[in-house]
């Protein structure tokens, strides 16, 4: 099993209202899990997940996670 630290942002926070600002949730996953596995584990609909950063780098849903990874998950957002 591995543990990753997941932070959810913007509209995704509606699903986890108890999460503090910038607070990471520890999530346990089987070794070899992918970003997509994490998204499913967290019960987030695929179409709501647009960007995933792992340790500060953009990753796709097929990329594998490692123990201790810091993951930031974002819906589609924009700005200036």
């Amino acid at each position, binding site marked *: 099993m591995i543990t990753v630290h997941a*932070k959810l*942002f*913007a*509209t995704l*926070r509606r699903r986890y209202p108890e999460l503090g*600002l*910038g*607070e990471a949730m520890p999530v346990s996953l089987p070794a070899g899990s992918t970003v997509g596995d994490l998204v499913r584990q967290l019960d987030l609909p695929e179409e709501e997940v*647009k*960007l995933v*950063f792992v340790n*500060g780098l*953009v990753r796709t849903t097929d990329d594998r996670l490692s123990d201790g990874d810091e993951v*930031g998950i*974002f*819906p*589609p*957002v*924009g*700005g*200036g």
Partner: protein
Amino acid sequence: MGKILRLNMSDRTAKLEDVPEKYAHLGGRGLTSSIVHDEVDPLAHALGPNNKLVFAPGIVTGTAAPTSSRLSVGGKSPLTGGIKEANTGGRVPPTLAVMGIRALVVEGQPEEKGKYWMAHITWDSDKGEPKVEFLPADEYTGRDLYEVFPELFDRFGDKVNVMGIGVAGEYLYSNSGVVAEDMERRPSRYAGRGGLGAVMGSKGLKFMIFDRTGAPAVKLADSEQFQTGRKKLLDALMEHDITKPKGGLNSYGTAVLVNIVNEAGALPTRNFREGRFEGAAEIAGEAIFEGNKTRLAKELYNHACSPGCVIQCSNTWYNEEGEEIVSCIEYESTWALGANCGIDDLDTVGKLIRLCNAYGLDTIEAGTTIAVAMEGGLAEFGDGQKAIELMHEIGKGTPVGRILGAGTAEAAKVLGVVRAPVVKGQSMPAYEPRAIKGIGMTYAISTMGADHTSGYTIAPEILGVAGKVDQFDRDKAELVRNFQYATAFIDSTGHCLFIAFAILDIASGFEGVVEECNGVLGTSWTMDDVARIGKEVIQKELEFNHAAGLTTADDRLPEFMEYEPLPPHDVVWDVPEETLDAVFGD
């Protein structure tokens, strides 16, 4: 169609001219840059009698085109020494279009220094054209704009529109913007960057008051094509996740970017020393939304800054008593006065933004200047109270204030700070070039100085809009160029740049914009004309800058970025000069 209105501040006269044929299809930035290119001596002093200040609504501004209430302000910049286009929304842009004012040119300079005037611009129904009355503005000078604006609306009526300057423009600060009112008549929308407020101040013009009562609607050359285009754009805006109602921008505003850019390790922190700020979550869009929810006991979605906007991304931040601190807190502002200064308290950031609005300052340049002041020893990073005091010094024009009002590059020079994050004298906005190479290239080559809105490559580099490219990839001359040209086109239409999130992903939306333009102008443009038109605008800007003395040596980033690795990714600026020079080529 329409006229050029000239205000001569040497003798306080006004005159209307027909729009010359060469400007027939220009609007917004295309028109301001053309007029500045054609009429301003590139070697003129930016605050002297020969600079001009040009205001132009966009091609489709004043029509039913969605999210099209934007206006360009142009001139020679006292900050960069080159050409400048600054852009604002708010209530005023459609008024100029409706009054048939395709461009308004402020020229000349009063002999008597320190005396300020207002231009009251109303509609003469008999002649079917605008008329101008010059009034003294002495009772409004030296004052907080939040106090002055209600007096102006009381005096001239609720329906008028105001553009003008705060004390920053009166002090001729290189960091001074041109203010415009928002939908609630707050002095909170700005054509902020590049010191154009000082140009207005140097011409003794404090305010322009526009009253469009009696003016007829904007005439369309081809209503059918206009309606077709309008619908295609509207559909795209309503469909895209970022621009749609209750979507990304409507829910969290631009400040939602704080956490994304922080995750990417590209949020400039404490004067561009690091790419992550430990307090980022406290000053981000989510913190605003959730803080308001706690303080007001309800969920507050964002509002429009201007009439006809369907994206509606402006927020309001309230204090614990439920009173408004400021509207609005944009990404750039909360970054500049927050993370870049090491400040993680939203109430402090809100107060600092409000003071920028009150005094007439560009929030980006103000924040980067205070950060340099912190590095230079005038305050500790993170000391919000001291930052507020420094802001008051700027507003009062104390000697320290005057140094800081001159902007980041000048403050760095005076204080001996090497880490000055500027290009062509204008400070960098909220994306670290070392960690996002394309935006770094954009800062380097933009005719505007360090500028993120002249080509928002952040969209593909970070946000996954218009494709996805690796933020660290350096081979981006073509990407950067394409964004420059497309953006110069959009800047000329009068649409808010945020339509780009939708139209870069949904092609029919971009086609719709082109069709709207054809509908207004009677042209037959296609998508193939977009890059051509954008390129023509930029070509004039490049010519002006070159004649003003700027060279490719000015298309570079500050040296410290080449040797100081930026945590957390430990990256330096290493894009080869040849790549930079290849963007606009030769």
